[in-house]
């Protein structure tokens, strides 16, 4: 039983409800859970972390049967954005906000929610149809990616004048989403790396999935297969550093892989924004065109920011190009989810876009004209949301594209 390993965490929930609607008047935080705000049934207890943790407890204690309605809720009531974890009283204590008085309980509600989904999958009651399709695509050797595009077309976006260097210890990991859905991101990404004089290798047609969506939707067995595969390939290629532009891939490599495999610790994982910042600091990448008269703002991808603590590099890069950078609110660790993560976009696109609309409105409140992201998942959903509004951003764009234009 997957949940057995999480028993201690589950019983550490004291039902305080901070995950329901956290407020910090001095920081201006008023609510933390996008699902609670935008889900039509958002105020039911099962639609925020406390209720989900109690469901996990009920399943452990065999208190009820798992019904289709319950399964639907488990996948429709959470984007695994981690905001509940960030504002969980137990997690705050564990992280060291205050000392303990002899013991220090641990609870990461997001981790429990992911385990709960894995439990449902283990019991054979999920994945749900759209999530199952992802797994089917990944297992198909002609597809080999989450979204169903042809395997042989995976690198179609690669500029002809840029060639991978098989001797390089740096790997550019393109991921599934950008190559098939927003290829302009990866095109810009490699151009930026190239401009910085970075010789990088790729996995070519052998690149598989990072496993992110699988981890989030409870399909852990296949996710771990992806992980083993990638780690093995990286070793074979003599890779030391992996650079990815995708927040989902980054979180998976940076947090999930080390959780499940000791081998993962051998690799340095960098998000493209971190790498660009490094190249700028080393003087290898020069910003030639600053844009002073345009206001831009930035959406923190949950997987990059809250989950992995990468808040500043994207901002620093962006500010170097757009001095008129403004923060949307709330931001950083308190930022609302764009709505796409945790399998939400695949399973309930309507709700995902609704949440995205909320973020677009928050962004537009800053009077910014451009919204920048560092995650193709966020980008896709925010663009969908932006297209629905009467006063949209002029552009919703990835940081890689912004940098490419400026160098």
């Amino acid at each position, binding site marked *: 039983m997957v949940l057995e390993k999480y*028993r*201690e965490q*589950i*019983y*550490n*929930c*004291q*039902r*305080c*409800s*901070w995950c*329901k*609607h*956290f*407020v*910090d*008047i*001095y920081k201006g935080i*008023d*609510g933390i859970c996008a699902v609670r705000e935008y889900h*039509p*049934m958002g*105020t*039911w*207890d*099962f639609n925020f972390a406390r*209720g989900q943790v*109690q*469901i996990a407890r*009920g399943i452990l204690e065999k*208190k*009820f*049967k*798992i*019904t289709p*309605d*319950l399964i639907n809720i488990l996948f429709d009531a959470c984007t695994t954005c981690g905001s509940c974890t960030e504002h969980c*009283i*137990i997690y*705050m*204590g*564990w992280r060291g*906000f*205050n*000392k*303990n*008085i*002899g*013991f*220090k*309980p641990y609870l990461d509600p997001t981790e429990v929610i992911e385990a709960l989904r894995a439990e449902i999958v283990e019991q054979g009651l999920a994945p749900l149809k759209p999530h199952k399709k992802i797994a089917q695509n990944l297992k198909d050797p002609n597809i080999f990616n989450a979204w169903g595009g042809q395997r042989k077309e995976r690198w179609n976006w690669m500029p002809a004048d840029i060639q991978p260097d098989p001797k390089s210890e740096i790997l550019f990991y393109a991921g599934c989403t950008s190559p098939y859905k927003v290829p302009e991101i990866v095109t810009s990404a490699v151009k930026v790396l190239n401009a910085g004089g970075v010789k990088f290798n790729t996995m070519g047609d052998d690149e598989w999935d990072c496993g992110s969506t699988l981890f989030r939707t409870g399909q852990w067995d296949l996710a771990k297969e992806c992980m083993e595969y990638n780690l093995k390939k990286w070793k074979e290629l003599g890779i030391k550093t992996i650079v990815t532009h995708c927040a989902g891939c980054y979180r998976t490599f940076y947090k999930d892989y080390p959780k499940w495999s000791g081998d993962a610790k051998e690799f340095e994982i960098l998000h493209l924004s971190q790498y660009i910042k490094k190249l700028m600091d080393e003087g290898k990448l020069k910003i030639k065109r600053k844009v002073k008269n345009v206001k831009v703002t930035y959406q923190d991808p949950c997987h990059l920011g809250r989950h992995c603590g990468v808040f500043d590099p994207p901002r620093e890069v962006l500010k170097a190009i757009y001095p008129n950078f403004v923060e949307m609110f709330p931001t950083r660790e308190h930022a609302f989810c764009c709505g796409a993560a945790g399998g939400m976009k695949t399973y309930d696109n309507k709700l995902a876009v609704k949440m995205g609309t909320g973020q677009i409105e928050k962004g537009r409140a800053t009077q910014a004209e451009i919204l920048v992201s560092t995650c193709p998942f966020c980008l896709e959903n925010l663009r969908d949301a932006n297209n629905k509004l009467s006063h949209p951003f002029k552009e919703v764009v990835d940081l890689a594209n912004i940098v490419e234009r400026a160098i």
Partner: protein
Amino acid sequence: MGKNNKMVKVNKEKKIIEELKEIVGPKNASNEPWVLYIYSKDSSIHEGQIPGFVVRPGNVKELQEIVRLANRTKTPVFPRGSGNALWAAIPPKGSIVIDTARMNRLLKVNKDTLNCIVEPGIMWAELEGLLHKEGYKYLVSPGNYIGASVGGHIASHGVGPSSSIAGNQGDCVIGLKVVLADGTLLTTGSAAHPYHPEHFARYTVPYDLTGLFVGSEGTLGILVEICLKIEKLEKAVRFAIYAFKTYEDGCQAALEFRETQFRLVRLMIDQFIPGRRARYSPEAEKVVATTYPITTIVGFEVCHESLADPQLKVLQEITARNGGVDLSTLDPMVPKNAEGMWRETGIGHCLRFQYGVRTLLPMIIPFGMEAKFFFEKGIEITKEVQKKFPQFVYSDAGNAFSVDRHYLSGFMTWYDESDPENWADAKEAMHMFQERGWKNGWTPYRWGTEWNSYLKTIHPYYDILKKLKKTLDPNNIMSPGILGLGGKGGR
């Protein structure tokens, strides 16, 4: 249960859920076992009970219809705010849990009469945010103000770290609208006037029915509209922590602080426990641990910045006269302003809950030098319990925050609900605290079902309570079992 009886029960349940769904819409009522499980327990040490239904009315009319249905079918109802009570506010088996989460609006801010009107399901933190935007604030909120609903706190006449001047939550209520057991909507206070139905004063009718429902914990009616006192946001706030050598000194200083009649929005007394002051420097903590184990935490507000420092000086003089020190002279990290006060005693107060699942017995003790007896007795009781149950960590016997003219203190123990033996021992430890605290004059103020056997010994108070219950709720549908009222229900 015989086969026929079982069939009758199933049919009755089927009819009730159908009617509930008709009243509130299919998405707002459920009798799915997994939903019932989520709504079966509060944050107390007591085990949950599975209700029969959960329903979420969106307005007063829907709630009235639900109660009428319950009364007609003699099905218990149990209003639920945030579901994190610490005193066994547990739904009766088979009851209709009325989740007030959808009734969560701030209806009105009356700036002339300094009050706001809210629905019961709004969270204190949400309300705080909304009022701040208007430049106002409420007077009292619970310790866990982020996770608690307004309705739940009023229904259990709660207190909070900001109660020093404003008193119990009930003292901040101007009027109510309450749905009674037969579905009637009762208005209390000035809003009952047929030609001027506005909330602006509480005592405009002979009997204070507002007071009857504040603290009734859902046994007499369900609060659907609450008029709360508000004040303009303060102009200046000062915050300080003073450390004393003995309880006597600390209590005397606290009394003198209160006697200044300054607008003290925080007044807390705290026995040193390693780690509690962890956000301060280790050096300061060392001094406190060895020389000044009693701290008083004071925050006050004034309407003009120029008044703040002279008042602070008075408090410092009182501290010095009682042999105390200003902790900020030892530690620059001690907060001094409004935000610091909020982080230390608002959110910081909640952070004491970070150590995990715990039982808490909040109890009332008198103010002034008399408090010293109770604190010392509390520490004595704690030692006795600790001797029998050394596996637990205990806290708070020597810690309290001031409510006007009294303190709120209590006993706290952490335990593990995944370990039945540990859980049972914790319950036993809590019973020891209850029994010994009670016999030594510690006075509970929120009862749930936790204090039923004690409440029943208070005569003739409890007898009157029963008569009131019988009169207002003859079918015994309103939270039966809570406050020891109403037979089978409850824990």
